């Protein structure tokens, strides 16, 4: 009987946790700004790169990997060249110090020995430069845990808020110009209530920013042509 009651209590806790999990709040805003007509052929590919840390950027490697994966996934996935493979094959022209910071530097870059051929070999039509990061902007609450011979537990409540702000600048390597930008601004608040057992209710802020940015990027690049003509 006691076992049944304990199992019921545990079940209730999971239900409550599940309900609260759905309430860990995330708000997001994804926008784009177009400067040129886009479009991509089946044999063309894109590269996702982080803007240089020499310029103060701190885009995380796992965020780049997430966007790469999200863009290449599914039937309508784009050909995405892994950024490290691309950077190595064009060494040293896309290192943090040497990569062009503006599209104005592209003609000179293309004139360097072997660069144009290597880019053509990869079939790279667009370079997407990511700028931004995810950071904790606020937090509070109090949580304490204790353990004794008879058992242990936690009591209290903690919360924290993370903001994920990313901007993707799309460069068209055929036209040597900027095609536009896509930005994702996501804010998420996570909670950690504890009544004996702490129940983390994590807002997946960075994942939401990755998903939102990747899906808008795909629309921007693939449907850009039709979108532009329609307007």
């Amino acid at each position, binding site marked *: 009987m006691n076992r049944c009651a304990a199992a019921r209590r545990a079940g209730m806790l999971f239900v409550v946790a599940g309900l609260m999990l759905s309430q860990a709040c995330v708000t997001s805003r994804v926008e784009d700004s177009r400067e040129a007509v886009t479009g991509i052929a089946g044999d063309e590919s894109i590269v996702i790169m982080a803007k240089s840390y*020499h310029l103060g950027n701190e885009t995380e*490697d796992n965020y780049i990997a997430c966007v790469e994966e999200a863009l290449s996934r599914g039937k309508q996935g784009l050909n995405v060249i892994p950024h490290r493979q691309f950077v190595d094959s064009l*060494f*040293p022209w896309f*290192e943090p110090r*040497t990569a062009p910071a503006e599209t104005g530097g592209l003609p000179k870059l293309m004139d*360097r*020995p072997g660069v144009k051929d*290597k880019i053509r070999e990869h079939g790279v039509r667009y370079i997407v430069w990511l700028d931004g990061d995810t950071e904790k902007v606020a937090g509070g609450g109090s949580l304490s845990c204790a353990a004794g011979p008879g058992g242990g537990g936690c009591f209290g409540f903690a919360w924290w808020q993370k903001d994920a702000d990313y901007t993707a600048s799309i460069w068209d390597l055929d036209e040597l110009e900027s095609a536009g930008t896509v930005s994702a601004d996501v804010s998420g608040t996570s909670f950690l209530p504890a009544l004996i057992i702490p129940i983390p209710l994590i807002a997946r802020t960075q994942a939401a920013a990755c998903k939102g940015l990747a899906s808008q990027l795909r629309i921007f690049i693939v449907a850009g042509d039709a979108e532009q003509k329609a307007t």
Partner: protein
Amino acid sequence: MSLLATACGSNVRLDPPTIPEPLINTVPLHVAVRIPVEFHGFVHKEEVIGNEEWTIDLGRSNAVFFEQLFRYMFDSVTVLGPEDDETVISYDALVEPSIDAFEFSVPSQTKTDSFAVWIRYRLRVYDPDGRLVGNWPVSAYGKSLTTMMGGDEALQRAAVLAMRDAAALMIFRFDPDQFMRTLSSGTEVPEDAAPGNDDKSAAAARTTPMEGGSNE
């Protein structure tokens, strides 16, 4: 476990990095490169406030790095040890790389999630008559965010990035024509471009062919 390692510091050993083959035209010169003793076993220790001690052992990384880089940059390269006599071989230029300064920072110092490595190399270039014709500082920087694998991997990555940065900088600023003019002019430059003396270093750097353009 990784938290414990971070709290007490760590010993990080770097395997020699592999520099990708650069997209450049090689310079038609025979260059001799003298690899100093320190490039075969460079160890740097950083004590952080709070009894945290980090040590990085670069091992042979610098030796391998410069050998690779110069083989990519020049048609022909002869690698000399610290005691080898350069007068028994013929060459167009003798390059002696060294380290002026090495520093790194860990997240507990900077209150960020990043490890950063700074390396300031110095390249001394001698013409075939033994005159010092180039004395150039090369300041490189690498930064890597802490990963789930812990700080060791991030520090290793930052060191590799700093070395790649040095290679990129040397290639980016290297002007082969000016390098050849510098060699043929035989104009000596001061030996005393001391580490940390930025004015002298800058003055020496201005006399070098490592002033090329940029992509901007």
